[in-house]
């Protein structure tokens, strides 16, 4: 039980997919201009990551190792398309805001990474936990970066204006380089606090 708990808590900080493994950076830059889009992206990724991990894990004894990556990508891509279609049908506004980013979950290194590193050799239940933990670790950083960017860049949070009329947003926070800076600072702070890094 202790290890199972660790599967879920580890990726939140000590082994965070974004700040420690520095995976999934592309979407961490792309969808973090506003908290709302980041939130939906986080939800979509959580669904995809958990289900892909479970599916891959269920298939793990049957997948021929020579084509295992292609199979993983097929499973992930199918799930992403399903999520995208569902968003379009039931959350039209949001799907329009996210536009191509949902599709880009397919290429999110975290999903493929967890399938390869964990789900392919572990039973479904722990794989689910692993997926959930990593998705939450990703979501946490995504929302953190988005909060900074939206507050500094647009003067609002989740669409609510925080500052009085006349606040001029910082263009830097809205552009991708701003995300790099904020992400860099987060990684720096986290590694300093946890002392969790190797420096050879």
């Amino acid at each position, binding site marked *: 039980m202790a290890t199972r708990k660790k599967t879920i808590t580890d990726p939140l900080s000590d082994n965070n997919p974004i700040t420690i493994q520095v995976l999934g950076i592309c979407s961490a830059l*792309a*969808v973090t*201009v*506003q908290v709302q*889009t980041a939130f939906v992206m986080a939800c979509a990724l959580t669904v995809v990551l958990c289900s892909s991990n479970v599916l891959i894990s269920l298939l793990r004894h*049957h*997948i*021929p190792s*020579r*084509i295992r990556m*292609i*199979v993983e990508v*097929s*499973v992930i*891509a*199918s799930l992403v*398309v*399903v999520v995208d*279609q*569902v968003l*379009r*049908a*039931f959350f*039209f506004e949001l799907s*329009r*805001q996210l*536009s*191509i980013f949902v599709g880009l979950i397919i290429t999110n290194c975290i999903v493929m990474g967890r399938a390869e590193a964990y789900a392919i050799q572990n039973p479904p239940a722990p794989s689910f936990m692993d997926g959930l933990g990593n998705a939450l670790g990703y979501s946490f950083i995504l929302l953190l970066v988005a909060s900074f960017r939206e507050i500094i*860049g*647009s003067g609002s949070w989740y669409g609510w204006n925080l500052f009085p009329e006349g606040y001029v947003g910082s*263009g830097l926070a*809205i*552009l991708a380089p701003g995300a790099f800076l904020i992400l860099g600072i987060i990684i720096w702070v986290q590694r300093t606090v946890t002392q969790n890094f190797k420096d050879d």
Partner: protein
Amino acid sequence: MQKADRQLVRFAFIVCVTCSVLLSGVAAGLRERQEREVELDRKRNVLIAFGVESRDETGRRISAERVAEIFADNVGQVVIDPDTGEELPDSVVEDRAIRRKQQLPLFYWMEDGERQRYTMPISGDGLWGRIYGYLALEDDLMTIAGITFFDHNETPGLGAEIERDWYQEQFRGKQLMADGDLKEFRSIRGGVESQYPDGNPHAVDGISGATITSESVARLITEDFRRYNIFFKRLRDG
């Protein structure tokens, strides 16, 4: 073929078939709902361009039923021939010709049995893809009454700001003609005031960080208005 190879091919085949069946199923099952959402979104945007309040007192968007109701009561559509400026009968209207702008659809607002205002669809290339929107005109058929953009692939936070109220509101009251002639509409980098301290009725502020998107919007307005103007000219001349 060895046994392992056969297994591999069989597995790959099963994966392919399962995935394609699943995806086709989902796509087919949801298509109707998706199309309804797209249609509703377009209608909402036509209404916004006409200046109908898009949100009620509680801040919620007006319902699908209400949109349909307003559409049935007040909104009509005609299709214009871009060469003659005449209205085309329904029998010759084709979706393909509309997409190629060989036929021009136009919405009008009916009140007291009269056509009062017109809204035209506008579209053109942006930075990443095509931008689609609606532009409503005042009675004089040369002043912008309202504008909306409902479909585009511009960068969120930059080009996608064209969806925001602050950007769209500045178009209201701007002129598309000067002294009876078509006038190129412009987007000014750094803001209209920086170049025209007294204001300019033919230009709006560009979006900083999204110059290409802003200029594309100005260009597509100019170009599409030129297409429709043949019809508006007939109306203006009476």
